[in-house]
């Protein structure tokens, strides 16, 4: 259920940027997820409508793009790219691997409607 809090964070960030730009409506929010992230796209999408229901962002679409995940092998110190399915270091075969600390999920851009020309 940790996706719920992530979705609330996405909503707040989108709203704050839309307000600064003087937008009248948010049409869509583009979210990037690292392929090594703990957050699942399906679960984020599932919470989106409910979390936005009563706010100014209601009706906005959420779109996802995927960015490569980065891993570090703690046995041989090699870093390598991979998604959630990673279970071994491609170099030494150790299972002692961890995702590199990087944002797992970020708001890339928002599409808004403004009343100006």
């Amino acid at each position, binding site marked *: *259920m*940790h996706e*719920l*809090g*992530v979705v*609330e*964070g*996405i909503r*707040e*960030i*989108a709203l*704050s*940027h*839309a307000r600064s*730009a003087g*937008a*009248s409506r948010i*049409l869509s929010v583009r*979210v990037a997820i690292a392929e090594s992230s*703990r957050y699942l796209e399906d679960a984020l999408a599932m919470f989106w409508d409910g979390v936005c229901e009563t706010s100014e962002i209601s009706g906005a679409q959420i779109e996802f793009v995927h960015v490569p995940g980065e891993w570090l092998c*703690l046995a041989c110190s090699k870093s390598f790219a991979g998604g959630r399915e990673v279970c071994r270091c491609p170099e030494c075969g150790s*299972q*002692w691997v*961890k*995702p590199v*600390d990087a*944002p*797992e*999920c*970020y*708001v*890339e*851009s*928002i*599409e*808004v*409607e*403004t*009343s*100006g*020309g």
Partner: protein
Amino acid sequence: MTVKTIQVAQNALDANREIAVQNRAALDSAGVVAVNLMASPGAGKTSLIERTVAELKGQIRIGMINSDTSPAAMDAERAERAGAVAVHLNTTGRCHLDAGMIRDTIACLPLREIDLLFVENIGNLVCPAAWQLGTHLSVLIASTPEGDDKPYKYPRMYSGADALVINKIDLLPYVTFNLDYFRRGVEALNRGLRTFPLSCRSGEGLDRWLDWIAFLAARETAVLQ
């Protein structure tokens, strides 16, 4: 009407982080040092708080925010009986604490009457690590019956801790827990991590922990991380 795209490039957790910064400022201005206690269910979070409160009674004033996914408030009641100012936070199913929950909860506490605040997070080794609360330090509790493989399975939790307690060391003769293997895993993730092997039940190793807690409570918050 014009449609335009605004580039944002902001971490989804930034909204939480901003509230965490405000929480830290509120704690600092009240002179409270706050510790985020994280562990799996049953590792001994409440037992450690209970022992700490009882042992340091009269020396430092301890507050406790207990969180659980249900209304069951027995952990907060245990801390209260030991002498803490305690409040129960029901996350209604959410699997970790976030900064907004802490902001709302510290508003219910008499912060001026507290030197040190324990925030007992939800028993979970996965997502609490990602959510800043505004506390000054994160302490992770491992316990010997859980097994020695946890640093290998939950690296994010171990790499983010400021201190580690290994609880239930009185059970070492009865459980499979290779302390060297465990420590090697921890060391690779978090070199030089301050570690307190102890037993809340027998009291072994507790003195060093209590000294450290008393030291933290006495420090000016500005010098903490």
